[in-house]
């Protein structure tokens, strides 16, 4: 499998460590979190496997192209719009969660407009960038950041305050039934393959998803889920953790670098994960924009000028929606709506699988 697929999957996983996933998971810590995560691990690897397998029979094709070729118009437009909106919302969720985190922990005096505005310029650039360049950017930033992330994780795992007894207590709660919201939230981290539905266009190497790839994706997923759930418990304790708003940030704020110029590791954590979250938003919205373009037939427009205008309208719409939502939403509402959004994931997956299978059947006949 091309390494870009791993990059896409990894970014999506890492971006979720800092966002709302830990809170969702920990809020259900005595309500079947462990079993849900185990189920999600299996489901996530299966989902990645099935989509990559289906997609690998169409090298160099994007989902909008495939749907347009093989599906009738009244089927393909609403489906593609659904995918596009869903993926837009997933980027929006990260954006708003992260704006909230920045507002709370890094720049409390700033207005929400200027925080969202921080992102505006560069995400817009990311949207109009060449798809190939998005992949290059992704690679370079990951190469720059992964050493720091590894250092950070090492620091977390080796910290003396990490109490494994608390983790033991959490594991004792294994005997409860999985919970639907927790399951969908933790499956969500595997959804990096969704970006492949567009970036497949640029990957030349034929994708294959065998046991090795499954183990890698599964292993990464296991590690991310384990870290997201058990490390805060190890630091903060099992009781009462479900009430903390951003457990991961509270956790990292309890670690310090004794000899560093920067003493509190939380700042490194915030800035690194800001970069990763930004990448994730940019990639999701890039894909979403392409889906919108496919669904609304913008890329078919003859004149360049018309295309530019249509694209600008789309991008402005992206921005208006995100600013309005960011200003209106409350912290409680954010949490609630993100749970709803996670809830749509199985439908998204079933629809996607159905579409891909239909496309494959029509392509074969």
């Amino acid at each position, binding site marked *: 499998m*091309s390494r870009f697929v791993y990059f896409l999957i990894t970014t999506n996983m890492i971006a979720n460590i800092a966002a709302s996933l830990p809170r969702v998971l920990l809020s259900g810590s005595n309500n079947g979190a462990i079993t849900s995560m185990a189920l999600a691990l299996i489901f996530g690897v299966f989902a990645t496997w099935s989509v990559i397998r289906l997609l690998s029979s169409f090298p160099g094709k994007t989902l909008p192209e495939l749907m347009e070729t093989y599906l009738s118009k009244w089927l393909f437009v609403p489906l593609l719009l659904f995918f596009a909106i869903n993926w837009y919302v997933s980027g929006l969720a990260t954006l708003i969660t992260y704006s909230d985190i920045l507002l709370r922990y*890094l720049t409390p005096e700033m207005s929400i407009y200027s925080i969202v505005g921080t992102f505006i310029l*560069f995400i817009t650039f990311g949207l109009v960038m060449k798809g*190939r360049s998005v*992949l*290059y950017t992704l690679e370079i930033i990951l190469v720059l950041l992964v050493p720091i992330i590894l250092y950070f994780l090492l620091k977390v795992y080796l910290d003396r305050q990490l109490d494994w007894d608390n983790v033991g207590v959490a594991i004792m709660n294994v005997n409860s039934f999985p919970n639907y919201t927790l399951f969908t939230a933790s499956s969500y981290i595997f959804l990096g393959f969704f970006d492949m539905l567009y970036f497949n266009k*640029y*990957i*030349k*190497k034929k994708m294959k998803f065998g046991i090795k790839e499954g183990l890698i994706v599964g292993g990464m997923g296991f590690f991310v889920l384990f870290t997201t759930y058990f490390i805060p418990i190890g630091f903060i304790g099992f009781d009462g953790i479900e009430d903390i708003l951003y457990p991961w940030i509270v956790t990292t704020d309890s670690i310090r670098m004794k000899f560093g110029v920067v003493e509190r590791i939380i700042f490194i954590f915030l800035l690194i994960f800001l970069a990763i979250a930004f990448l994730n938003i940019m990639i999701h919205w890039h894909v979403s924009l392409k889906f919108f373009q496919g669904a609304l037939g913008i890329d078919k427009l003859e004149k360049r000028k018309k295309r530019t205008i249509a694209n600008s309208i789309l991008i402005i719409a992206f921005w208006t929606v995100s600013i309005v939502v960011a200003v209106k939403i409350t912290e409680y509402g954010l949490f609630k709506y993100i749970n709803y959004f996670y809830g749509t994931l199985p439908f998204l997956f079933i629809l996607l699988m159905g579409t891909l299978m239909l496309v494959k059947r029509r392509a074969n006949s």
Partner: protein
Amino acid sequence: MDENTENPNTPEYMKRLTKKLEPSDDIVQNTLTIEGKKVHLLFLKSVVDPLQLQSVIVKPFFEMKEERHYAEYINSLPYKTKLPSGDREVMIELTKGNVLVMVNNQLTLLELKIVANNMVQEADLEPTMHGPQMGMSESLEININIIRQRYHDPSLIVETLELDEQSNRGIALLYDKDRVRPGVLDKIKERLQPLDVELVQAADELIYYLNNKKRSLFPTSLLSGRPDRLINNITAGKVIILVDGSPHAIVTPIVFFDFMASMEDRYHSYWIMVGAMVLRYGGLFTCLMLPGIYVGVTSYNPDVFRTELALTVAASRIGVPYPSFIEVFFMLIFIELLTEASLRLPVTISATATTVGGLILGTAVVEAALASNIIVIVVSLVAISTFVIPVNEMSYAIRICRFFLLLYATLFGLAGLVLGMLGLIMFLSNKDSLGQPYLRMYWWNREKELKAGKR
């Protein structure tokens, strides 16, 4: 030459050309005759080497017995160049220092030019301690010779073109035909052909037109005066463009990392090279981000640094009457002025400028509490790290980017700085140099993996 133009024996063709070139003083139209043999010469004496003319053309004429023999002799000379068809083209050849010889109704162009500034100069654009010390000359032929003499392989192709502008400047494309990337050559020619400019004087100027964009910040072609760097790049499949009269050559297409490489890296042992690389990239990040970090930390998040350090920074800012970004901005402008001034001044005076500006003013500014001690350190560090970047043009571009990042950090704090940095990376990876991606990791063979997709 009056009597010669009156000479009834002079062929029509020569007369016509002479007429067109007149009233230039240095035009010579001459007919040599002895014992029934006859040869007509036409040249510009200011660009022709008289000694060579004497020994190659004049002397053998008087020694040979028959005109037929002499014609054969002229025809077999190694100086012979192709005779173009139109009058104008022939005249351009004459202005380059060619001699038009007509013997026995046979026209030949002989290249006997003399170029005054063909001295090989020291490579002062990118000096190194090890490796070759001499650079290129200002003559196209000598430069081609320099490169050919260091790259003995028949696959090295030299294509000479003539720019379609006022000075009809010769340029040469050099590449290894087995290694050059497909498509690049066509693209270069495609951009050079319709070149609609008044005058191109140097390689540095041609880069601007190759770039195909009216306004750009980052260089998309490398300018180098070091033969070893040129050879290195030919081996890597790149195209070298030499311009007559310029001691620098254009290397294209180019990627970002080429600007961060110094030729000296090759002449050191591995770990020294790695150390130098780490230092260089450290310098790059320092000079880009340090002003932004200072603003972000002092104005937005003083709690990022450990307490002692935060207190030191705050203490040194006591008495400074304005916010940190104005302080940084002023000091950066000041250091840029200093750099710019010492560039323009002669070496002897520039030392004074640096001393007055750097030492005396720096101390005075701090004592007058117009800037903090720390900012003086930050700004000097930034200025020094800028010079670590080996290629000049990149260092200029980085200097400008720094202000952009400073602005973003001023507006949005540390988060803005990080996002600005990401934006810079995005901008660079979206850029391309003649169709080749500008910034990318190139540790795996990418050609196999990613399609060179269009937008």
